Protein backbone atom coordinates (compact mmCIF):
# COMPACT_ATOMS: atom_id res chain seq x y z
CA UNK A 1 0.00 0.00 0.00
CA UNK A 2 1.39 3.37 -0.98
CA UNK A 3 0.96 6.01 1.72
CA UNK A 4 0.70 9.58 0.56
CA UNK A 5 0.99 12.71 2.63
CA UNK A 6 -1.10 15.25 0.76
CA UNK A 7 0.26 18.77 0.69
CA UNK A 8 -2.98 20.16 2.11
CA UNK A 9 -2.63 17.86 5.14
CA UNK A 10 0.72 19.39 6.07
CA UNK A 11 -0.82 21.79 8.58
CA UNK A 12 -2.59 18.90 10.34
CA UNK A 13 0.64 17.00 10.27
CA UNK A 14 2.57 19.82 11.96
CA UNK A 15 -0.22 20.26 14.53
CA UNK A 16 -0.09 16.57 15.42
CA UNK A 17 3.68 16.65 15.81
CA UNK A 18 3.46 19.74 17.98
CA UNK A 19 0.82 18.00 20.10
CA UNK A 20 3.19 15.07 20.55
CA UNK A 21 5.84 17.42 21.92
CA UNK A 22 7.98 17.86 18.83
CA UNK A 23 9.42 21.12 17.62
CA UNK A 24 9.06 21.20 13.86
CA UNK A 25 11.89 22.80 11.94
CA UNK A 26 11.90 23.37 8.20
CA UNK A 27 13.42 25.37 5.36
CA UNK A 28 12.50 29.03 5.29
CA UNK A 29 13.59 32.09 3.42
CA UNK A 30 14.55 35.04 5.56
CA UNK A 31 16.42 38.15 4.40
CA UNK A 32 17.23 36.34 1.17
CA UNK A 33 18.95 33.47 3.00
CA UNK A 34 17.34 30.06 3.14
CA UNK A 35 17.96 28.05 6.28
CA UNK A 36 16.17 25.77 8.75
CA UNK A 37 14.05 27.38 11.45
CA UNK A 38 11.09 26.41 13.66
CA UNK A 39 7.69 26.58 11.96
CA UNK A 40 4.13 26.86 13.30
CA UNK A 41 2.31 26.22 10.06
CA UNK A 42 2.93 24.82 6.60
CA UNK A 43 2.79 28.17 4.82
CA UNK A 44 6.05 29.18 6.52
CA UNK A 45 7.90 26.36 4.78
CA UNK A 46 9.75 26.94 1.55
CA UNK A 47 9.73 23.47 0.02
CA UNK A 48 10.35 24.53 -3.57
CA UNK A 49 14.02 25.37 -3.21
CA UNK A 50 16.44 22.66 -4.25
CA UNK A 51 18.82 23.22 -1.37
CA UNK A 52 18.93 25.72 1.49
CA UNK A 53 21.84 28.15 1.57
CA UNK A 54 22.70 27.07 5.10
CA UNK A 55 22.96 23.40 6.07
CA UNK A 56 21.14 21.49 8.81
CA UNK A 57 24.56 21.17 10.51
CA UNK A 58 23.88 24.28 12.58
CA UNK A 59 20.93 22.52 14.23
CA UNK A 60 23.29 19.91 15.68
CA UNK A 61 26.50 21.88 15.87
CA UNK A 62 25.66 25.60 16.09
CA UNK A 63 28.03 28.19 14.70
CA UNK A 64 28.55 29.28 18.28
CA UNK A 65 27.22 27.74 21.45
CA UNK A 66 27.86 28.30 25.13
CA UNK A 67 29.31 25.26 26.93
CA UNK A 68 29.81 26.57 30.45
CA UNK A 69 29.37 29.64 32.53
CA UNK A 70 32.28 29.98 34.93
CA UNK A 71 32.62 31.98 38.12
CA UNK A 72 36.00 32.03 39.76
CA UNK A 73 36.32 32.31 43.50
CA UNK A 74 39.33 31.93 45.75
CA UNK A 75 38.36 28.47 46.99
CA UNK A 76 36.39 27.11 44.06
CA UNK A 77 35.59 27.57 40.41
CA UNK A 78 31.91 27.22 39.79
CA UNK A 79 31.06 25.88 36.33
CA UNK A 80 27.50 25.72 35.18
CA UNK A 81 26.97 23.61 32.08
CA UNK A 82 24.79 24.64 29.20
CA UNK A 83 23.60 21.48 27.53
CA UNK A 84 21.19 21.30 24.59
CA UNK A 85 17.59 21.86 25.71
CA UNK A 86 16.55 18.23 25.38
CA UNK A 87 13.45 18.78 23.24
CA UNK A 88 12.23 16.34 20.63
CA UNK A 89 12.58 17.81 17.16
CA UNK A 90 11.53 17.00 13.64
CA UNK A 91 13.59 18.44 10.85
CA UNK A 92 11.14 18.47 7.98
CA UNK A 93 12.31 18.86 4.41
CA UNK A 94 16.05 18.42 4.65
CA UNK A 95 17.66 16.98 1.53
CA UNK A 96 19.44 13.60 1.39
CA UNK A 97 22.85 15.25 1.11
CA UNK A 98 22.35 17.16 4.37
CA UNK A 99 20.86 14.17 6.19
CA UNK A 100 23.74 11.97 4.99
CA UNK A 101 26.25 14.52 6.22
CA UNK A 102 24.95 14.22 9.78
CA UNK A 103 25.39 10.43 9.66
CA UNK A 104 28.87 10.92 8.20
CA UNK A 105 29.90 13.05 11.19
CA UNK A 106 28.49 10.68 13.84
CA UNK A 107 31.63 8.51 14.06
CA UNK A 108 33.85 11.59 14.23
CA UNK A 109 31.98 13.03 17.20
CA UNK A 110 31.84 9.60 18.77
CA UNK A 111 35.20 7.92 18.18
CA UNK A 112 36.45 6.98 21.60
CA UNK A 113 35.37 10.22 23.30
CA UNK A 114 31.74 11.24 22.82
CA UNK A 115 30.69 14.83 22.20
CA UNK A 116 27.55 15.30 24.34
CA UNK A 117 26.44 18.42 22.48
CA UNK A 118 26.31 16.60 19.16
CA UNK A 119 24.78 13.32 20.34
CA UNK A 120 22.11 14.81 22.56
CA UNK A 121 20.79 16.75 19.59
CA UNK A 122 21.17 13.81 17.22
CA UNK A 123 19.29 11.50 19.54
CA UNK A 124 16.34 13.84 20.00
CA UNK A 125 15.96 14.70 16.29
CA UNK A 126 13.94 12.93 13.61
CA UNK A 127 15.08 13.67 10.08
CA UNK A 128 12.20 13.81 7.61
CA UNK A 129 13.97 14.09 4.28
CA UNK A 130 12.57 14.99 0.88
CA UNK A 131 14.15 13.14 -2.05
CA UNK A 132 15.31 15.47 -4.80
CA UNK A 133 13.45 15.53 -8.10
CA UNK A 134 15.41 18.56 -9.28
CA UNK A 135 19.07 19.47 -9.12
CA UNK A 136 21.32 22.31 -10.19
CA UNK A 137 24.73 22.51 -11.86
CA UNK A 138 26.55 22.19 -8.54
CA UNK A 139 24.81 19.10 -7.15
CA UNK A 140 27.27 16.19 -7.06
CA UNK A 141 25.83 13.51 -4.76
CA UNK A 142 26.09 10.84 -7.45
CA UNK A 143 29.82 11.54 -7.84
CA UNK A 144 30.17 10.69 -4.14
CA UNK A 145 28.34 7.38 -4.66
CA UNK A 146 25.26 8.80 -2.95
CA UNK A 147 21.99 9.63 -4.68
CA UNK A 148 19.15 12.20 -4.75
CA UNK A 149 17.21 9.71 -2.61
CA UNK A 150 19.98 8.28 -0.38
CA UNK A 151 18.50 6.98 2.86
CA UNK A 152 21.69 7.59 4.89
CA UNK A 153 20.92 9.72 7.95
CA UNK A 154 17.17 9.95 7.28
CA UNK A 155 14.45 8.57 9.54
CA UNK A 156 11.51 9.18 7.23
CA UNK A 157 11.85 9.65 3.47
CA UNK A 158 9.36 11.66 1.43
CA UNK A 159 9.26 11.24 -2.33
CA UNK A 160 7.29 13.78 -4.34
CA UNK A 161 4.35 12.34 -6.29
CA UNK A 162 3.51 13.49 -9.78
CA UNK A 163 1.51 16.68 -10.00
CA UNK A 164 3.01 18.08 -6.80
CA UNK A 165 0.05 17.16 -4.63
CA UNK A 166 2.10 15.48 -1.93
CA UNK A 167 4.74 12.96 -1.00
CA UNK A 168 5.04 9.22 -0.71
CA UNK A 169 6.03 8.49 2.90
CA UNK A 170 8.46 5.76 3.92
CA UNK A 171 9.57 5.03 7.48
CA UNK A 172 13.29 4.22 7.51
CA UNK A 173 14.29 3.94 11.16
CA UNK A 174 13.01 3.21 14.63
CA UNK A 175 13.87 6.77 15.63
CA UNK A 176 11.23 7.95 13.14
CA UNK A 177 8.57 5.51 14.36
CA UNK A 178 6.74 7.81 16.78
CA UNK A 179 6.68 10.73 14.34
CA UNK A 180 5.37 8.40 11.67
CA UNK A 181 2.69 6.88 13.92
CA UNK A 182 1.42 10.34 14.86
CA UNK A 183 0.59 11.19 11.25
CA UNK A 184 -0.28 7.77 9.90
CA UNK A 185 -4.00 8.47 10.18
CA UNK A 186 -3.57 11.47 7.89
CA UNK A 187 -1.99 9.48 5.11
CA UNK A 188 -3.89 8.82 1.95
CA UNK A 189 -3.61 5.38 0.44
CA UNK A 190 -4.69 6.34 -3.04
CA UNK A 191 -2.36 5.17 -5.73
CA UNK A 192 -0.09 7.88 -7.04
CA UNK A 193 2.83 7.91 -9.39
CA UNK A 194 6.18 8.84 -7.79
CA UNK A 195 8.06 11.57 -9.62
CA UNK A 196 11.42 10.32 -10.93
CA UNK A 197 14.41 11.42 -8.87
CA UNK A 198 16.70 14.11 -10.21
CA UNK A 199 19.26 13.15 -12.80
CA UNK A 200 22.54 14.34 -11.31
CA UNK A 201 25.39 13.73 -13.74
CA UNK A 202 28.73 12.36 -12.53
CA UNK A 203 31.17 15.22 -12.34
CA UNK A 204 34.41 13.39 -11.50
CA UNK A 205 35.72 9.89 -10.90
CA UNK A 206 35.97 9.44 -7.15
CA UNK A 207 37.93 6.18 -7.31
CA UNK A 208 40.56 7.74 -9.55
CA UNK A 209 40.77 10.77 -7.26
CA UNK A 210 41.12 8.68 -4.11
CA UNK A 211 43.85 6.60 -5.67
CA UNK A 212 45.73 9.77 -6.71
CA UNK A 213 45.33 11.28 -3.24
CA UNK A 214 46.61 8.09 -1.61
CA UNK A 215 49.93 8.31 -3.47
CA UNK A 216 52.41 10.00 -1.07
CA UNK A 217 54.27 11.52 -4.03
CA UNK A 218 51.27 13.63 -4.97
CA UNK A 219 51.27 15.25 -1.53
CA UNK A 220 54.17 17.39 -2.72
CA UNK A 221 52.75 17.94 -6.21
CA UNK A 222 52.77 21.38 -7.77
CA UNK A 223 49.10 20.67 -8.49
CA UNK A 224 48.10 21.96 -5.05
CA UNK A 225 49.64 25.37 -5.67
CA UNK A 226 47.99 25.73 -9.05
CA UNK A 227 44.54 24.61 -8.00
CA UNK A 228 44.41 26.81 -4.92
CA UNK A 229 46.10 29.94 -6.21
CA UNK A 230 42.76 31.76 -6.31
CA UNK A 231 41.79 30.78 -2.75
CA UNK A 232 41.40 33.83 -0.54
CA UNK A 233 41.09 31.74 2.61
CA UNK A 234 37.68 33.15 3.53
CA UNK A 235 36.40 29.87 4.95
CA UNK A 236 32.98 30.14 3.26
CA UNK A 237 33.27 26.60 1.87
CA UNK A 238 33.93 25.18 5.32
CA UNK A 239 31.15 27.10 7.06
CA UNK A 240 28.63 26.09 4.39
CA UNK A 241 29.82 22.50 4.33
CA UNK A 242 27.46 20.09 6.11
CA UNK A 243 30.29 17.72 7.09
CA UNK A 244 33.01 20.24 8.07
CA UNK A 245 33.28 19.87 11.84
CA UNK A 246 36.35 21.84 12.94
CA UNK A 247 35.87 24.00 16.00
CA UNK A 248 37.55 26.29 18.45
CA UNK A 249 36.93 27.17 22.08
CA UNK A 250 36.84 30.81 23.16
CA UNK A 251 36.17 32.36 26.53
CA UNK A 252 33.96 35.43 26.60
CA UNK A 253 34.37 37.31 29.80
CA UNK A 254 37.25 37.90 32.16
CA UNK A 255 39.13 35.87 34.72
CA UNK A 256 36.28 36.27 37.24
CA UNK A 257 33.27 35.19 35.25
CA UNK A 258 32.25 34.51 31.71
CA UNK A 259 31.24 31.89 29.22
CA UNK A 260 33.31 29.28 27.39
CA UNK A 261 31.94 28.82 23.89
CA UNK A 262 32.42 26.25 21.16
CA UNK A 263 32.66 27.99 17.77
CA UNK A 264 33.04 26.87 14.18
CA UNK A 265 36.59 27.15 12.95
CA UNK A 266 38.10 26.53 9.55
CA UNK A 267 41.17 24.79 8.14
CA UNK A 268 41.28 27.65 5.60
CA UNK A 269 42.48 30.06 8.26
CA UNK A 270 46.22 30.47 8.86
CA UNK A 271 45.73 30.83 12.61
CA UNK A 272 44.02 27.47 12.77
CA UNK A 273 47.28 25.54 13.14
CA UNK A 274 49.72 28.31 14.14
CA UNK A 275 51.90 27.41 17.12
CA UNK A 276 52.60 30.00 19.81
CA UNK A 277 56.24 29.93 18.66
CA UNK A 278 55.17 31.23 15.26
CA UNK A 279 55.81 27.91 13.53
CA UNK A 280 52.88 26.93 11.33
CA UNK A 281 52.76 23.41 9.90
CA UNK A 282 50.23 24.58 7.29
CA UNK A 283 51.71 27.95 6.51
CA UNK A 284 50.43 28.42 2.96
CA UNK A 285 46.92 28.59 1.49
CA UNK A 286 47.80 25.68 -0.79
CA UNK A 287 48.81 23.49 2.16
CA UNK A 288 45.50 24.37 3.80
CA UNK A 289 43.45 23.53 0.69
CA UNK A 290 45.41 20.27 0.36
CA UNK A 291 44.52 19.50 3.98
CA UNK A 292 40.83 20.09 3.26
CA UNK A 293 40.78 17.76 0.24
CA UNK A 294 43.03 15.14 1.84
CA UNK A 295 40.94 15.19 5.00
CA UNK A 296 37.69 14.67 3.16
CA UNK A 297 38.79 12.04 0.67
CA UNK A 298 41.78 10.30 2.24
CA UNK A 299 42.19 10.73 6.02
CA UNK A 300 38.51 10.64 6.99
CA UNK A 301 37.61 7.61 4.83
CA UNK A 302 40.74 5.87 6.16
CA UNK A 303 39.35 6.18 9.69
CA UNK A 304 35.59 5.98 9.21
CA UNK A 305 35.12 4.29 5.82
CA UNK A 306 33.08 7.22 4.48
CA UNK A 307 34.06 10.30 2.51
CA UNK A 308 33.68 13.47 4.49
CA UNK A 309 31.53 14.91 1.70
CA UNK A 310 27.93 14.24 0.77
CA UNK A 311 28.00 16.11 -2.52
CA UNK A 312 25.72 19.05 -1.72
CA UNK A 313 27.94 21.33 -3.80
CA UNK A 314 27.60 24.38 -1.58
CA UNK A 315 31.39 24.89 -1.55
CA UNK A 316 31.41 25.48 -5.30
CA UNK A 317 28.01 27.19 -5.41
CA UNK A 318 28.96 29.87 -2.89
CA UNK A 319 32.71 30.25 -3.39
CA UNK A 320 33.52 33.91 -4.10
CA UNK A 321 36.37 32.94 -6.43
CA UNK A 322 34.69 30.02 -8.20
CA UNK A 323 36.68 27.13 -6.85
CA UNK A 324 35.52 24.21 -4.78
CA UNK A 325 35.66 20.50 -4.24
CA UNK A 326 34.06 19.73 -7.59
CA UNK A 327 36.63 21.72 -9.57
CA UNK A 328 39.53 20.22 -7.61
CA UNK A 329 38.34 16.65 -8.03
CA UNK A 330 37.61 17.25 -11.71
CA UNK A 331 41.18 18.47 -12.16
CA UNK A 332 42.55 15.49 -10.23
CA UNK A 333 40.50 13.15 -12.41
CA UNK A 334 42.06 14.78 -15.50
CA UNK A 335 45.59 14.83 -14.04
CA UNK A 336 45.45 11.22 -12.91
CA UNK A 337 44.20 9.79 -16.18
Amino acid at each position, binding site marked *: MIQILLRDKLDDCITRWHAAGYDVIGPQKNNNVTRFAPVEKASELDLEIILTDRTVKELFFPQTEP*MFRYRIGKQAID*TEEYLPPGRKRIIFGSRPCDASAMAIDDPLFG*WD*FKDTYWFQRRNETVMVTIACTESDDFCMCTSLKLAPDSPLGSDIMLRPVAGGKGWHVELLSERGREAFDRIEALLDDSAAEKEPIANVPKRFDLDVCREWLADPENFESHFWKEISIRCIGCGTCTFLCPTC*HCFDFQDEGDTYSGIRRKNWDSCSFALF*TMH*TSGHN*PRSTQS*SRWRQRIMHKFN*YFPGKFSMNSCSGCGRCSRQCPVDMGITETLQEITKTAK
Partner: protein
Amino acid sequence: MTEKTNNGRQNIYKPAIMKIVDKRDEAPGVKTLRLEFLDPLDHEMFRLHYRTGMFGLYGIFGEGESTFCVASPETRKEYIECTFRQSGRVTSSLANSEIGDLVTYRGPYGNRFPIEEFYGKNLLFIAGGIALPPTRSVIWSCLDQREKFGKVTIVYGARTVADLVYKHELEEWQNRSDIDLVLTVDPGGESPDWQHHVGFVPTVLEEAAPSPDNCIAVLCGPPIMIKFTLISLRKLGFQEENVYTTLENRMKCGVGKCGRCNVGSVYICKEGPVFTAAEVSKMPQSDL
Protein backbone atom coordinates in the same frame (compact mmCIF):
# COMPACT_ATOMS: atom_id res chain seq x y z
CA MET B 1 28.67 7.30 29.13
CA THR B 2 31.06 4.63 30.21
CA GLU B 3 34.07 5.48 32.31
CA LYS B 4 36.36 3.84 29.84
CA THR B 5 35.43 5.94 26.85
CA ASN B 6 35.01 9.39 28.34
CA ASN B 7 37.44 9.44 31.29
CA GLY B 8 34.34 9.19 33.48
CA ARG B 9 32.93 12.47 32.22
CA GLN B 10 29.62 13.04 30.61
CA ASN B 11 30.87 16.26 29.06
CA ILE B 12 34.35 15.74 27.67
CA TYR B 13 34.97 19.48 27.34
CA LYS B 14 34.34 20.19 31.00
CA PRO B 15 37.67 20.58 32.76
CA ALA B 16 38.62 19.39 36.20
CA ILE B 17 39.65 22.05 38.71
CA MET B 18 43.13 21.79 40.19
CA LYS B 19 44.97 23.73 42.86
CA ILE B 20 48.53 24.94 42.48
CA VAL B 21 50.40 23.43 45.44
CA ASP B 22 53.93 24.25 44.31
CA LYS B 23 55.55 26.54 41.80
CA ARG B 24 59.18 26.54 40.69
CA ASP B 25 61.23 28.74 38.40
CA GLU B 26 63.21 26.42 36.13
CA ALA B 27 64.87 28.79 33.68
CA PRO B 28 64.18 32.27 32.33
CA GLY B 29 60.48 32.22 31.35
CA VAL B 30 60.12 28.54 32.23
CA LYS B 31 58.06 27.46 35.22
CA THR B 32 56.87 24.23 36.78
CA LEU B 33 53.52 23.98 38.54
CA ARG B 34 52.55 21.11 40.78
CA LEU B 35 48.78 20.63 40.74
CA GLU B 36 46.36 18.64 42.88
CA PHE B 37 42.80 17.70 42.04
CA LEU B 38 40.04 19.25 44.13
CA ASP B 39 37.49 16.57 43.29
CA PRO B 40 38.49 13.03 44.42
CA LEU B 41 36.55 11.58 41.48
CA ASP B 42 38.64 13.54 38.98
CA HIS B 43 41.75 12.32 40.77
CA GLU B 44 40.52 8.73 40.64
CA MET B 45 39.98 9.00 36.87
CA PHE B 46 43.46 10.42 36.44
CA ARG B 47 44.95 7.57 38.45
CA LEU B 48 43.05 5.10 36.34
CA HIS B 49 44.01 6.52 32.96
CA TYR B 50 47.34 8.27 33.22
CA ARG B 51 50.39 6.65 31.65
CA THR B 52 53.67 8.33 30.84
CA GLY B 53 53.62 10.17 27.52
CA MET B 54 50.03 11.35 27.76
CA PHE B 55 49.25 15.06 27.75
CA GLY B 56 46.72 17.43 29.20
CA LEU B 57 45.07 20.76 28.46
CA TYR B 58 45.88 23.22 31.22
CA GLY B 59 43.95 26.43 31.44
CA ILE B 60 42.62 29.50 33.11
CA PHE B 61 38.99 30.38 32.50
CA GLY B 62 38.87 33.70 30.69
CA GLU B 63 42.12 32.96 28.85
CA GLY B 64 41.74 29.48 27.42
CA GLU B 65 43.58 26.17 27.42
CA SER B 66 47.12 25.17 26.42
CA THR B 67 48.44 21.74 25.65
CA PHE B 68 51.52 20.28 27.28
CA CYS B 69 52.73 16.97 28.54
CA VAL B 70 52.28 15.64 32.03
CA ALA B 71 55.86 16.04 33.22
CA SER B 72 55.41 13.87 36.29
CA PRO B 73 55.78 10.10 35.93
CA GLU B 74 53.09 7.40 36.00
CA THR B 75 54.71 6.10 39.17
CA ARG B 76 53.65 9.29 41.01
CA LYS B 77 50.00 10.00 40.47
CA GLU B 78 49.28 12.01 43.62
CA TYR B 79 49.72 15.20 41.64
CA ILE B 80 50.40 16.52 38.15
CA GLU B 81 53.48 18.52 37.32
CA CYS B 82 53.65 20.58 34.18
CA THR B 83 56.56 22.62 32.90
CA PHE B 84 56.04 25.29 30.29
CA ARG B 85 57.57 28.34 28.70
CA GLN B 86 55.67 31.56 29.15
CA SER B 87 54.85 32.60 25.59
CA GLY B 88 51.15 33.20 24.93
CA ARG B 89 48.03 34.29 26.76
CA VAL B 90 47.35 31.07 28.64
CA THR B 91 50.94 30.29 29.59
CA SER B 92 51.46 33.88 30.77
CA SER B 93 48.39 33.64 32.91
CA LEU B 94 49.49 30.27 34.31
CA ALA B 95 52.97 31.66 34.98
CA ASN B 96 51.49 34.57 36.89
CA SER B 97 49.34 32.30 39.06
CA GLU B 98 50.44 31.72 42.63
CA ILE B 99 50.45 28.76 44.99
CA GLY B 100 46.87 28.23 46.13
CA ASP B 101 45.33 29.51 42.89
CA LEU B 102 43.00 27.30 40.88
CA VAL B 103 43.52 26.22 37.28
CA THR B 104 41.64 23.94 34.90
CA TYR B 105 42.82 20.61 33.53
CA ARG B 106 41.50 18.20 30.92
CA GLY B 107 43.06 14.83 30.25
CA PRO B 108 45.04 12.72 30.33
CA TYR B 109 44.79 12.25 26.56
CA GLY B 110 46.82 10.55 23.86
CA ASN B 111 48.97 7.45 23.78
CA ARG B 112 51.92 6.53 25.95
CA PHE B 113 55.44 5.22 26.04
CA PRO B 114 55.24 1.40 26.10
CA ILE B 115 57.46 1.18 29.17
CA GLU B 116 56.88 -2.54 29.77
CA GLU B 117 58.45 -3.19 26.37
CA PHE B 118 61.60 -1.45 27.63
CA TYR B 119 62.07 -3.91 30.55
CA GLY B 120 65.51 -5.51 30.51
CA LYS B 121 66.85 -3.00 28.02
CA ASN B 122 69.38 -0.21 28.20
CA LEU B 123 67.84 3.24 28.00
CA LEU B 124 69.22 6.31 26.29
CA PHE B 125 67.38 9.58 26.95
CA ILE B 126 68.20 12.58 24.78
CA ALA B 127 66.57 15.95 25.34
CA GLY B 128 67.07 19.53 24.27
CA GLY B 129 65.99 22.64 26.19
CA ILE B 130 62.35 22.77 27.19
CA ALA B 131 61.83 19.20 25.91
CA LEU B 132 63.28 17.66 29.05
CA PRO B 133 59.80 17.65 30.73
CA PRO B 134 58.26 14.93 28.50
CA THR B 135 61.52 12.97 28.71
CA ARG B 136 61.67 13.43 32.47
CA SER B 137 58.26 11.80 32.83
CA VAL B 138 59.68 8.65 31.22
CA ILE B 139 62.98 8.95 33.10
CA TRP B 140 61.31 8.93 36.52
CA SER B 141 58.86 6.22 35.48
CA CYS B 142 61.91 4.06 34.82
CA LEU B 143 64.06 5.25 37.73
CA ASP B 144 61.19 4.50 40.13
CA GLN B 145 61.57 0.85 39.07
CA ARG B 146 65.25 1.03 38.29
CA GLU B 147 65.89 -2.70 38.71
CA LYS B 148 63.82 -3.50 35.62
CA PHE B 149 66.19 -1.74 33.22
CA GLY B 150 69.83 -2.03 32.16
CA LYS B 151 72.19 0.90 31.75
CA VAL B 152 70.57 4.37 31.84
CA THR B 153 72.20 7.23 29.95
CA ILE B 154 70.79 10.77 29.84
CA VAL B 155 72.10 13.31 27.33
CA TYR B 156 70.67 16.75 27.93
CA GLY B 157 71.57 20.04 26.32
CA ALA B 158 70.32 23.60 26.31
CA ARG B 159 71.36 26.87 24.70
CA THR B 160 72.87 28.25 27.87
CA VAL B 161 73.50 27.07 31.41
CA ALA B 162 70.59 29.20 32.58
CA ASP B 163 68.24 27.46 30.13
CA LEU B 164 68.76 24.00 31.65
CA VAL B 165 65.54 22.98 33.39
CA TYR B 166 65.11 20.77 36.49
CA LYS B 167 68.58 21.80 37.75
CA HIS B 168 67.95 20.19 41.16
CA GLU B 169 67.13 16.88 39.47
CA LEU B 170 70.13 17.08 37.16
CA GLU B 171 72.26 17.35 40.28
CA GLU B 172 70.53 14.33 41.79
CA TRP B 173 71.04 12.28 38.62
CA GLN B 174 74.66 13.44 38.47
CA ASN B 175 75.27 12.00 41.92
CA ARG B 176 73.69 8.62 41.20
CA SER B 177 76.07 5.85 40.24
CA ASP B 178 73.39 4.01 38.25
CA ILE B 179 72.90 6.85 35.73
CA ASP B 180 75.31 8.27 33.14
CA LEU B 181 74.43 11.92 32.78
CA VAL B 182 75.92 13.89 29.91
CA LEU B 183 75.21 17.62 30.06
CA THR B 184 76.03 20.13 27.38
CA VAL B 185 75.32 23.71 26.39
CA ASP B 186 75.61 25.29 22.97
CA PRO B 187 78.94 27.00 22.24
CA GLY B 188 78.87 30.41 23.88
CA GLY B 189 76.23 29.34 26.39
CA GLU B 190 78.69 28.16 29.04
CA SER B 191 79.26 30.03 32.30
CA PRO B 192 82.76 30.47 33.81
CA ASP B 193 82.20 27.62 36.28
CA TRP B 194 80.61 25.21 33.76
CA GLN B 195 82.18 21.77 34.26
CA HIS B 196 80.40 19.84 31.52
CA HIS B 197 80.40 19.68 27.72
CA VAL B 198 80.17 22.58 25.32
CA GLY B 199 78.69 21.62 21.95
CA PHE B 200 75.46 20.69 20.23
CA VAL B 201 73.57 17.63 21.35
CA PRO B 202 74.23 15.50 18.23
CA THR B 203 77.99 16.08 18.44
CA VAL B 204 78.13 15.38 22.16
CA LEU B 205 76.00 12.29 21.66
CA GLU B 206 78.39 10.93 19.03
CA GLU B 207 81.32 11.53 21.38
CA ALA B 208 79.55 9.71 24.21
CA ALA B 209 78.82 6.92 21.69
CA PRO B 210 76.28 4.85 23.62
CA SER B 211 75.90 1.34 22.25
CA PRO B 212 72.73 0.59 20.27
CA ASP B 213 72.77 -3.02 21.49
CA ASN B 214 69.58 -3.88 23.34
CA CYS B 215 68.97 -0.15 23.74
CA ILE B 216 65.87 2.05 23.46
CA ALA B 217 66.38 5.74 22.75
CA VAL B 218 63.87 8.40 23.82
CA LEU B 219 64.46 11.65 21.98
CA CYS B 220 62.62 14.93 22.60
CA GLY B 221 63.59 18.37 21.46
CA PRO B 222 63.04 21.14 18.96
CA PRO B 223 62.56 19.89 15.36
CA ILE B 224 66.03 20.97 14.22
CA MET B 225 67.69 19.09 17.08
CA ILE B 226 65.60 15.99 16.40
CA LYS B 227 66.55 16.07 12.74
CA PHE B 228 70.29 16.11 13.39
CA THR B 229 70.18 13.82 16.41
CA LEU B 230 68.39 11.18 14.33
CA ILE B 231 71.29 11.30 11.87
CA SER B 232 73.74 10.77 14.74
CA LEU B 233 71.68 7.92 16.16
CA ARG B 234 71.65 6.26 12.77
CA LYS B 235 75.45 6.62 12.59
CA LEU B 236 75.71 5.00 16.03
CA GLY B 237 73.70 2.06 14.69
CA PHE B 238 70.26 2.70 16.22
CA GLN B 239 67.25 1.35 14.33
CA GLU B 240 64.37 3.82 13.84
CA GLU B 241 61.99 1.34 15.48
CA ASN B 242 63.97 1.65 18.72
CA VAL B 243 63.90 5.44 18.82
CA TYR B 244 60.87 7.06 20.46
CA THR B 245 59.93 10.70 20.24
CA THR B 246 56.94 12.97 20.86
CA LEU B 247 55.26 15.36 18.44
CA GLU B 248 53.26 18.44 19.25
CA ASN B 249 50.80 20.61 17.37
CA ARG B 250 48.19 23.17 18.19
CA MET B 251 45.16 21.54 19.78
CA LYS B 252 41.78 22.66 21.05
CA CYS B 253 39.80 19.54 21.93
CA GLY B 254 42.54 16.98 22.62
CA VAL B 255 40.23 14.17 21.56
CA GLY B 256 40.32 14.05 17.74
CA LYS B 257 37.42 16.30 16.78
CA CYS B 258 38.52 19.91 16.39
CA GLY B 259 40.52 19.06 13.28
CA ARG B 260 43.85 20.84 13.58
CA CYS B 261 46.61 18.63 15.04
CA ASN B 262 46.89 15.99 12.31
CA VAL B 263 50.13 15.38 10.44
CA GLY B 264 48.93 13.69 7.27
CA SER B 265 46.30 11.24 8.42
CA VAL B 266 47.73 10.91 11.92
CA TYR B 267 46.01 12.77 14.76
CA ILE B 268 48.70 13.68 17.27
CA CYS B 269 46.10 13.95 20.03
CA LYS B 270 44.82 10.40 19.60
CA GLU B 271 47.43 8.34 17.78
CA GLY B 272 50.26 10.31 19.43
CA PRO B 273 51.94 12.23 20.91
CA VAL B 274 54.40 9.31 21.26
CA PHE B 275 55.76 7.87 18.03
CA THR B 276 58.77 5.87 16.96
CA ALA B 277 61.16 7.57 14.56
CA ALA B 278 60.08 4.95 12.02
CA GLU B 279 56.46 6.13 12.32
CA VAL B 280 57.44 9.79 12.03
CA SER B 281 59.49 9.18 8.91
CA LYS B 282 56.38 7.74 7.21
CA MET B 283 54.45 10.98 7.77
CA PRO B 284 54.41 13.70 5.10
CA GLN B 285 57.43 15.70 6.23
CA SER B 286 56.17 19.04 4.91
CA ASP B 287 53.14 18.73 7.21
CA LEU B 288 55.30 18.66 10.36
